[in-house]
């Protein structure tokens, strides 16, 4: 038992579960405070998400929607964790995600490109943004968090400006991809048949899983991962060992950014969501990636499950009974839970301390 508890993976898992429970508990308390009458029912609705629907077919369809939105989140959390493993905190993932959305939507709507070129352009545009942060970090020692946050806003407003050219006349939203250019929609590979014909479930699902596996392999099994992690942990030692440490920093941010860009492409190219050209805040997807990365124990495979869970809770929020609560409550509750999710490392640390203390006491006897 004790041996099991000392295993890194087990610790991460327990910590994640505890975070989720704490998040739900606090979310429940918030509901109780606002209106005790509907609290129990509402928190259950959030947990149940698509199970709130009675027909299995509807359940599957809604499950598909959650899945479709979870995949971009997987990519965003991969983006965060890839950089984090190399010792960089890529908070710019949010902006890189926006750049990806911009590139893929513009290429699809203005130039009529097919889905794959659109996707690759999204990755390239995001990577470019990542490269800027990387170059500033490598050559001017500008903290990646500062330049990342700045670029998030630049990316947002640039995207608003660019996508205004392809928006509907009557609304602030971009044109429907399915009407204007169906070839830019991600292929479904027949996956919709598993989800009661939900065409939002696409190649994005296998692609995201593939990306997670690739990130895991690169980080733990390859020379590139070895170099990148060495650079992240100790830039001086990397340089001493003859590694091109500046190149490695830039490369890390480029890869991390490309992952975020791919995430945007996986969302907007389903045709499920459209860009709102008047929005004045950076989409939360990139930031939720941080929570998902930590909740997943900073493991690429863990990121798949944690991302799905976070999306599940976020979607579940929409089922909260609005006769008891204002519609914004769903966002409040899911944010509380997501916020608590990033306490994973803290809980892991506390667990390790407790075990060490017990060991010491045992040693004393």
């Amino acid at each position, binding site marked *: 038992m004790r041996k099991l508890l000392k295993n890194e993976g087990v610790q991460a898992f327990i910590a994640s579960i505890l975070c989720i429970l704490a998040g739900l508990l606090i979310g429940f308390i918030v509901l109780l405070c606002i209106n005790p009458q509907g609290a129990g029912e509402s928190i259950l609705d959030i947990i149940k998400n698509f199970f709130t629907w009675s027909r299995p077919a509807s359940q599957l369809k809604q499950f598909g929607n959650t899945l479709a939105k979870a995949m971009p989140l997987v990519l965003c959390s991969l983006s965060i964790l890839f950089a984090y493993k190399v010792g960089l905190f890529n908070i710019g993932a949010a902006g890189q995600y926006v750049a990806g959305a911009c590139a893929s939507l513009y290429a699809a709507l203005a130039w009529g490109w097919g889905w794959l070129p659109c996707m690759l352009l999204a990755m390239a545009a995001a990577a470019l943004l990542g490269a800027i942060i990387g170059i500033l970090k490598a050559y001017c020692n500008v903290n990646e968090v500062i330049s990342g946050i700045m670029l998030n806003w630049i990316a947002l407003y640039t995207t608003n400006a660019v996508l205004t050219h392809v928006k509907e006349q009557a609304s602030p939203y971009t044109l429907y991809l399915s009407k204007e250019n169906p070839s830019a929609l991600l292929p479904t590979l027949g996956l919709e048949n598993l989800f009661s014909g939900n065409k939002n479930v696409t190649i994005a699902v296998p692609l995201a899983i593939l990306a997670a596996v690739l990130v895991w392999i690169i980080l733990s*099994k390859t020379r590139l991962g*070895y170099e990148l992690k060495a650079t992240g942990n*100790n830039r001086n*030692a*990397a*340089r*001493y*060992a003859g590694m091109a440490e500046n190149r490695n920093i830039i490369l890390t941010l480029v890869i991390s950014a490309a992952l975020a860009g791919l995430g945007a492409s996986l969302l907007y190219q389903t045709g499920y969501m459209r860009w709102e050209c008047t929005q004045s805040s950076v989409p939360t997807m990139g930031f939720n990636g941080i929570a998902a990365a930590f909740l997943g124990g900073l493991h690429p495979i863990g990121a798949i499950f944690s991302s799905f869970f976070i999306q599940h809770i976020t979607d579940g929020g929409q089922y909260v009974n609005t006769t008891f609560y204002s519609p914004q409550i769903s966002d409040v509750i899911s944010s509380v839970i997501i916020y608590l999710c990033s306490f994973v490392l803290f809980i892991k640390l506390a667990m390790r301390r407790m075990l060490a203390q017990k060991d010491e006491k045992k040693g004393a006897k």
Partner: protein
Amino acid sequence: MGDVHSNEFAIEMLHITKRFPGIIANDDITLQLRHGEIHALLGENGAGKSTLMSVLFGMYQPEEGTIKKDGVEVKIHNPNDANALGIGMVHQHFKLVECFSVLDNIILGNEPVGSMGLLKKDVARKKILDLSEKYGLKVDPDALISDITVGMQQRTEILKMLYRDNEILIFDEPTAVLTPQEITELMQIMKNLAAEGKSILFISHKLAEIMAVADRCTVLRKGQYIGTVNTKDTTMEELSAMMVGRKVNFHVEKKPANPGEVLLEVSHMTVASRVHKNNAVRDVSFQVRRGEIVCIAGIDGNGQSELVYGLSGLEPLVSGKILLNGKEITKSSIRKRSVSGMSHIPEDRHKHGLVLDYSLEYNIILQTYFEPEFTNKIGFLRSKNIRDYSERLIQEYDIRSGQGAVTPARSMSGGNQQKAIIARELDKQPDVLIAVQPTRGLDVGAIEFIHKQLIAQRDAGKAVLLISLELDEVMDVPDRILVMYEGEIVGELDPKRTTQEELGLYMAGARRDEVSGK
């Protein structure tokens, strides 16, 4: 002072036993510190010195044993209790705030506060200046820590203890970071403090210093109490035998050198300084031949580090030429130099030598990870080869660690970290080995091991360039000594014929020759 105290001992740690899972760190250890004495605590790395001090500071609670202050039993539950009892410590790695002034650091945590919560710095300043004068601790209260020398940082730490009116002063390996001159100064300061009635515990494994400054010495070995002796009645040989458990050969045994062709040739090398506008290395020329050890001696900060940065490629040259094995490498990358036969044991093993969060095996392949042995054609690491290779080196170089190849480098002792670096650099089979202070902060056993390795490299026909600040090492190990002073080579000496005094004159810049370095 003695008449003030009812008891002979300032602090007594009696029969202290502290166990950790799988290890007894302190096994029935007794340490008695008299009023006004300098008491050395001697032991190799891992002998239990740190644990014993942590017990004294309340960071660990011992399973058995008692602590007495002036004969009265006390309980120390945390460092605050220790502070209240007047126990202060200068840590090996200073605990100073870099961007604060000396004065701010000294008062930190004990600030004199007037009404309205305003700091009364002038009161503190006066007290600090008084203390500094009384004990000969020269500091500039307004200088920033980041701007002052290591020696002055240490004096700041000492003042911190004195400012808090501590009576029992613990020095943890205080000389590891100092130049010979600063060490002499520190010894004098310690004697002054003891003369004023302070009781000093001096943790060290440098025997010469213990003999020079301490009144008594307690020796630990592998968690066991070996004994306490008066330094007057003992010899260095006896102390080292107590510490290591066997006789240690102080004198480095080596055959006469048999130099061959030139492997490393440096001509008119100039390297810029990162800190100052002046060049740190100015127009330096020298050669190192196959089968000889050349030592660059000098006081810290005379351009030795920059010389090595220039040689290894960490800094570009302003001018000059470097030939490695006859080929010019002046503008080559670090990697190119490394694969062309240059090995480099860096000065700072934590900054350059190791990735502390990597496992031992990953650190062992740090210079060779890209070789086909460790990386296959499509860029995957060959984990089995890496494991086999690192296990071989762990065996050969006797690198000790908790979990073998997978131990995080961070959790290894300094001596074993250094052994890992040495194993890595020597096993590359270099033509030229650059070893910068390879024995810094290590215990006698490890130093002996490393010196033997350097000489073995020489005898195997390699060129060894040793950069050292330790006078004993400079006199014993190399075949030729080049003395560096203010970025220039000011003398070439034959270690067999020179004396420490002569060497000191060159190091201090009091004498210089025209040196060809050939």
